[in-house]
């Protein structure tokens, strides 16, 4: 009886944890895929996988990176399973036009369009850092890169975005 009550409480806690992290997971999946519908599918599948594997989560404080890793793997699996066709970046931007246009400020919409066009290898570490609050070491571990490689990618990501948004890059450093 006590086991049953304990199990229910544990499941309820896990559900609440997933619920609280879900918005950030969806945003992460969106910026991975640049496709809202696909992001929702990926997060939905990831949640089911997490639910089945919840015993593997020993420390609730580690839930966010644990779930992010599941989302990344699920996104990669989606490509293996569906063999998604390569899509033109301009088509992706056009498809997500309502989201870009919904930005309350024009320069936010402009920046989102630039993010959509940023190469995957620059966009993903940037999203992990800015949106998910990952440190350089955590990004390196998640993406299986060296620390200097992560820093280079982050630097190039910002350089490209700032240039695309017409920012003054006159003081930008030489690599």
């Amino acid at each position, binding site marked *: 009886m006590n086991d049953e009550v304990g199990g229910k409480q544990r499941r309820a806690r896990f559900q609440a944890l997933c619920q609280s992290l879900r918005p950030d997971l969806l945003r992460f999946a969106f910026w991975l895929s640049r496709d809202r519908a696909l992001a929702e599918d990926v997060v939905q599948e990831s949640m089911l996988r997490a639910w089945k594997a919840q015993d593997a989560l020993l420390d609730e404080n580690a839930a966010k990176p644990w779930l992010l890793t599941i989302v990344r793997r699920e996104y990669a699996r989606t490509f293996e399973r569906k063999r998604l066709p390569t899509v033109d970046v301009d088509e992706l931007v056009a498809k997500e036009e309502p989201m870009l246009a919904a930005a309350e400020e024009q320069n936010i919409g402009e920046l989102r369009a630039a993010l959509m066009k940023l190469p995957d290898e620059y966009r993903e570490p940037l999203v992990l850092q800015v949106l998910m*609050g990952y440190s350089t070491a955590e990004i390196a571990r998640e993406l299986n890169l060296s620390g200097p490689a992560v820093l280079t990618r982050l630097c190039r990501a910002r350089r490209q975005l700032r240039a695309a948004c017409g920012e003054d890059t006159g003081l930008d450093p030489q690599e």
Partner: protein
Amino acid sequence: MMDHDHYRLAVMADPHDSDDALRAHRESCAECREFTERLLRFESRLERALRVDVPQSANVLPFARRAAAAAPRRRQWMTLAASVVLALLVAGGVWLTLPQSSLAADVVAHMAGEPDAWRRTEVPVTDPALDVVLQDSKLRLKSGAGIVSYASSCDFRGHKVPHLVMQTPSGPVTVMVLVHEPVNKSMRFDEQGYHGTIVPVPGHGSIAVLMRDAESGSTDVERIAARVDDSIVWTR
């Protein structure tokens, strides 16, 4: 001594890097300081751009559906009814809490744009500087409220609000007094490496208190928020 390119490459990779050598260079070089300020303004936009709206329909977790399918047949009607009630409550809750959630996001975005405010220091801001910030919002702090190491009157959602950093044994804690942002109940948040709470202050909007995750440990931000609330004297 760090050169300009080294400094700028480092802050372009992580504009919030609080490394001592970077800070020392920034303080000694006006051009790099200007570069950083420009970069941080861009960073604030970047954070807002990445924080796309999440569809409300996506707030229904898949587990409940699977659990209902696995339940004994005689419990299915009750489960279904409970799910409908839960869905309505969740939908209602989402609708009610949406503005507050975006308030937390805006608070975090604002904090992230001011990395120097997080410095650990025992040096308080001068009394006249603190008074100017607090008088704007018609409040003052009781003596013994603690060391205020940063005080600024910041633009936030169309209003000037006091942005204070108070030094606590657990590290710097940022406080924003949001007179124009009433909330119904306390709301905890955990976003972008910050965690904190927004608590209602009846008749005076709300107070946001937040810490960086790396420094918060097991600190109870609610307790800190209550202490801050206690130390404020409203002058209107």
